[in-house]
């Protein structure tokens, strides 16, 4: 497995795609920071380290869609390029292939998240005035990240299933968006129109839990629920993905 992970890292870290995407996201992050700083220097006294940093907590849901890019980078259109046959024909087990790609895509997501959050936090620290709420802001971010991490992993798992099972990468991305973003909407409507149980199920969807997370500040039982749901969904997605991939014909 170590060889497989090394090779996947070798491949993904040689893709311009990774660095260009990261640069674009960092540029957008810079734009947000500049916007906040611009209002500060023009008299908006509400702009301080606390308020700008916790803005990031409101964008945790974005992290659930980041796997669309990181899974795509790692999976590298295997079905279009037919490169999976080189791995299968050498006798690499499909379990290793599946878990290897999932692990590396999760690693890339984690590194990208670390770079983005690190630079954002550093920007906030340098650009905005500090007050007694600095510690609270950092604690709140820590709390949100502790809950978001397993939910992001679940999103990673769900997205990777789509890339492995849907031959077309674009369609796979749309399927993942559908599962992560559209299904909660459908459940919400069904909860209103059909039965409240659908609303209960919706509350267990990763994107919904990520949205709710900042409002549940320091309720540690909610963090427990995030881990339970996140890891449960990750394991379920791996089981479904592996079962289907084992039977898949590789051309």
């Amino acid at each position, binding site marked *: 497995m170590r*060889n*497989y992970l*090394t*090779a*996947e890292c*070798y*491949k993904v870290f*040689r*893709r*311009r*795609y990774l660095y260009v995407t990261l640069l674009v996201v960092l540029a957008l992050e810079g734009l947000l920071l500049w916007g906040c700083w611009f209002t500060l220097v023009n008299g908006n006294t509400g702009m301080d380290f606390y308020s700008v940093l916790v803005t990031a907590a409101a964008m945790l849901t974005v992290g659930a869609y980041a796997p669309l890019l990181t899974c795509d980078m790692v999976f*590298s259109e295997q079905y279009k*390029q*037919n*490169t999976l*046959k*080189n*791995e*299968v*024909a*050498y*006798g*690499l*087990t499909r379990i290793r292939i599946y878990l290897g790609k999932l692990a590396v895509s999760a690693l890339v997501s984690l590194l990208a998240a670390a770079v983005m959050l690190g630079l954002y936090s550093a920007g906030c620290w340098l650009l905005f005035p500090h007050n007694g709420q600095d510690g609270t802001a950092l604690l709140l971010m820590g709390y949100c990240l502790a809950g978001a991490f397993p939910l992001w992993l679940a999103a990673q798992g769900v997205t990777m299933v789509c890339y492995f099972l849907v031959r077309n990468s674009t369609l796979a991305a749309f399927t993942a968006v559908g599962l992560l973003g559209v299904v909660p909407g459908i459940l919400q409507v069904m909860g209103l129109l059909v039965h409240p149980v659908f609303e209960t199920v919706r509350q267990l969807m990763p994107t919904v839990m990520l949205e709710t997370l900042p409002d549940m500040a320091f309720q540690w039982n909610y963090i427990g629920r995030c881990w339970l749901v996140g890891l449960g969904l990750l394991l379920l997605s791996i089981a479904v993905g592996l079962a289907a991939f084992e*039977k898949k*014909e*590789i*051309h």
Partner: protein
Amino acid sequence: MTEEILVTRGLTKRYGNRPVVDGVDLTVKKGQIYGLVGRNGAGKTTLIRMVTGQTPPSGGELNLFGATGGKELSAMRARTGVMVETPSFYPYLTARQNLEYYRLQRGIPGSQAVDQVLEAVDLADTGKKTFKNFSLGMKQRLGLALALMNRPDFLLLDEPINGLDPEGIVEFRNLLIRLNQEQQTTILISSHILPELANLATCYGFIDNGVMLEQISAPALQEKCRACLEARVDDASQATLILEKALGVRDYEVLPGNVIRLYCCLDQPQDVARALVEGGAALLSIESRGANLEDYFLSMIGGVRHA
């Protein structure tokens, strides 16, 4: 006993009710260059895909280096080098980067393994050119480089010379012969270009409509395809006596239906006919015969079809 590298018994692949490979028995022995011959859609690629694990069989047995299934079979696949259909690589990586990726993935020690195979297939000087900018011939050669990188005991090559120029074909043929003779690499090769297969193979398997029609060694095939004069007479025993006496013929065989095959006098059909008629035998027909691999295959599948 010669070691059996690959044995299939009743290997079958069905899509719905349609069998694409139907109960194929195949044996590849150590040191052989096995030519798999069949027209388009005959089932060659599906058969190879089942051996490589890309397609799960619907039935039958598959034995590779003595392993028949599970992790053991997967492990044995690491002793093979495979090139199935068009070689596939990451388009944004160079030849060296693509091979380095697979070297790392397969745990092959030393990056000189990459340099050696790139040198062997004449791709050492491709520099920063990425795979997407390669010609078909270069892609084929890179595919072969990957197949050779782990120094396989058994090479499975599906249509490997597609896209190679004449010079490339000769180099490729020589490389395979060298691997076979110097490193005892066993090779299974499928190709449409039958004259090219005839230059390489030591054994043939003829497949059509998913069914293995015949497995035959190259010497046995050569014997079957040997050039001869075929005379049909009314009494073969009388005719052979006449020919022995009149022309001193010794190299012949008598087939059922009073057919005599003469492996001498190939350029003297008139003399043979005259001798028979003057000796009192009734000569019904006489014709030159002899087949190459292509003719043999076509006669086997029953007529001229695209091979």
